């Protein structure tokens, strides 16, 4: 038994050290359904950002905020449904519930990040009084970006959540109903929307997006 399993929490790097073929949750969809190409007619463009690092952070806002500032230099969004990014735009943290946040970072950073956060939150060997959780969920979800003039209408076909700019400004993210499934919907910039899909529903959601987006000549970037 490896050493750290003897501690309070089992933390480990899920990524292989060597080159091992990896498949995003949409791998099967690309093969089975295909990828309509992007053309000048495309009023919606879909792009998957596969293999990013996804961590769920659970705990009290005040406790976590310190650690997140220290490790990421980012403020923990305290307001419901808030989404913030670091300056590069590569790392984001999103409010999911009063004690739950989603961290998305470039693929490969997540293990080190988790360790640093755990270190900042207190010695992993002595957490009997520290109540928090960090969970790697990167294999279970993927991020999809949508851009184009008809994105908002495509979203309106799919979710009952109000995606009007007044109700959904940049820097917002919500978990909501999408078609007959659910996902996390975020708006990192004026023109770009992001969907965080669960792996097992990804194919359904992909087929839904292509179907709903056909009217706008949706294209999928390879």
């Amino acid at each position, binding site marked *: 038994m490896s050493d750290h399993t003897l501690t309070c929490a089992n933390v480990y790097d899920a990524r292989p050290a060597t080159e091992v073929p990896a498949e995003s949750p949409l791998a099967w969809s690309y093969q089975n359904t295909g990828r309509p190409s992007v053309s000048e007619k495309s009023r919606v463009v879909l792009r998957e950002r596969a293999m990013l690092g996804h961590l769920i952070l659970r705990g009290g*806002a005040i406790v976590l905020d310190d650690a997140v500032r220290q490790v990421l230099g980012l403020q923990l969004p*305290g*307001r*419901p449904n808030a989404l913030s990014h670091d300056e590069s735009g590569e790392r984001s943290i999103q409010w999911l*519930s009063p004690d739950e946040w989603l961290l998305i970072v470039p693929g490969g950073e997540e293990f080190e990040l988790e360790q640093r956060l755990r270190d900042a939150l207190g010695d992993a060997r002595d957490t009997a009084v520290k109540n928090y959780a960090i969970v790697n969920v990167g294999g279970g979800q993927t991020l999809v970006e949508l851009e184009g003039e008809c994105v908002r209408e495509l979203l309106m076909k799919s979710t*009952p*959540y109000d995606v009007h700019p007044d109700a959904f400004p940049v820097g917002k993210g919500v978990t*909501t*109903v999408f078609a007959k499934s*659910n996902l996390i919907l975020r708006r990192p910039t004026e023109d770009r929307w992001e969907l965080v899909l669960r792996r097992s529903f990804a194919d359904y959601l992909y087929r839904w997006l292509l179907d709903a987006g056909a009217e706008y000549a949706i294209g999928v970037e390879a």
Partner: protein
Amino acid sequence: MFHIYCPYCEELREEEEFHPKGQAHIARPTDPDTCSDEAWGDYLFFRDNPRGIHHELWVHAVGCRKFFNITRNTVSYEILETYKIGEEPRFTAEHPAGKPTEQAAAEAEAVARQEGVKA
């Protein structure tokens, strides 16, 4: 379709994001092992089912996944308030227009909580 204010997400959301979970404030007997079959049966199955103001437990299943309570009129379906677990309703069958004295206190408490989140 209801439009429900989630007290945790602090905004109105569509009913499709929520699941109703029955009557609110059902207390589990504190010492189950010594309570009577009647008391246990009452806890499990017997409900108020009023025509009018009713307190119910809901969960923001597709959202923050938090449970919370709704005071709702079961005839008009008007939602009078939503409140967090552990809080008391302002609107009750006895006080359909709200409990006036507690109102201020409740609001102050809510504000205090918000401050806490901001910090």
